[in-house]
């Protein structure tokens, strides 16, 4: 196998792959940072409605520099804009949308995902100032809770594991993981491999995964646009 660093998908390619699964009209919450990139890759002809925890549905693009209105921001505290169809609401309504099962998809980042669907993404367990924000709420209630992540850590350790070692964000909450090497579903306490990049073999993929990858029918080829590499 070539070095994983040479064959893995870029973050943009992972975000592109996740965007392909978002249906027209879906209500979607994208976590701060990497997951926000998913909004750029909506397939032609489909329009998702994005939710941001601080109380906005269906917001517009970021304003030009100097045009920011600081009453109009997203959960990452970045300036956004309104557009026809935008709605504002208070925080209790916003999280009723989350926990009440009204969101179709929530997409988050991860430090670790366990085969049980447990997610660790809010604390590295080390000192410093702990901060959780809306992560623990977002993993409950959306019909699909997807994770975007590199398949391995910066030091090459697995991020898909048998059991999380870091503090949990939620128990049994993740339904699908889009990694830099594969698309993996979580079903009945197992990782089920759906797609992998062609450059890696099944054995090689298993070797960098911390829990057994189960097969359920054919494994699809994970191919993302080259220009996003």
């Amino acid at each position, binding site marked *: 196998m070539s070095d994983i660093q040479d064959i893995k998908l870029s973050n943009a390619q992972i975000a592109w792959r996740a965007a392909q699964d978002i249906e027209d009209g879906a209500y979607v919450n994208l976590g701060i940072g990497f997951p926000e990139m998913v909004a750029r890759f909506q397939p032609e002809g489909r329009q998702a409605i994005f939710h941001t925890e601080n109380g906005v549905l269906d917001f517009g693009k970021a304003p030009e520099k100097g045009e920011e209105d600081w009453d109009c921001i997203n959960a990452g*505290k970045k300036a956004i804009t309104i557009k026809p169809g935008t709605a*504002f609401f208070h*925080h209790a309504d916003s999280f009723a949308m989350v926990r009440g099962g009204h969101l179709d998809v929530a997409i988050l980042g991860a430090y670790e995902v366990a085969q049980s669907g447990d997610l660790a993404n809010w604390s590295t367990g080390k000192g410093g100032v702990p*901060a959780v*924000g809306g992560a623990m709420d977002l993993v*409950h*209630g959306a019909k699909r809770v997807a994770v975007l992540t590199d398949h391995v850590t910066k030091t090459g350790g697995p991020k898909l594991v048998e059991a999380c070692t870091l*503090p949990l964000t939620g128990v049994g909450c993740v339904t699908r993981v889009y990694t830099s090497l594969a698309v993996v579903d979580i079903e009945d306490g197992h990782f089920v491999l759906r797609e992998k990049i062609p450059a890696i073999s099944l054995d090689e993929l298993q070797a960098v995964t911390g829990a057994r990858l189960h097969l359920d029918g054919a494994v699809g080829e994970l191919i993302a646009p080259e220009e996003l590499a």
Partner: protein
Amino acid sequence: MDKRLSTLAEAVSRIPDGATVMIGGFGGSGAPVELIHALIDHGARGLTVVNNNAGNGHVGLAALIEQGRVDKLICSFPRSADPQVFTEAYLAGKIQLELVPQGTLAERIRAGGAGIPAFYTPTGFGTDLAEGKPVEEFDGRSYVRERWLKADFALIKAELADSHGNLTYRMAARNFNPLMAMAAETTIVQATRIVELGGIDPEQVVTPGIFVSHVVEVADAAQEEMLNRAEAVYP
């Protein structure tokens, strides 16, 4: 009935040492910066503050913390672009932190205002933040019991207000403000404009005046973000 006051100083003058104070806003949007600065001038100490964040830069909530007035902060995300003030106070053991998931924080405040002493939520189940809290199963799923959150005072930023205390908000500056307005014994509002009765379409009222104690007009309210870009420091 007229809930209008002419000065911010008068509005915050009855906040005693040791009070629990909810402060509206999410980051800088909806943060009642002028009311917080009036509270700093007033001098109350030993406060417990409820806010989503922990301040940014050296103005608003960060300034209140920097002045050593806050003993405890209840929040979901004590980080910001410039979190130095809170971070230093926390690491030096000068301020206590109760970390609450954001949706749970909002619902605890809503429950406090609605007279619901506790509720069950899936949020946090099986995590460190649910440690020691009662858990119950409903329809095969586990939920954590969370308590209401109430305050002695709430500091709120609104767009329009009338003399009855009816309020509207501007864009995403709404956030925690309508919830906190309900959950405090005394709710103090800074509004960008105070209008005559009838000046707010009843269909547009977001916070009905029953939840509001005092309103003060602050026409050119500062945005925390702009103050921080100008590297402002209060006082």
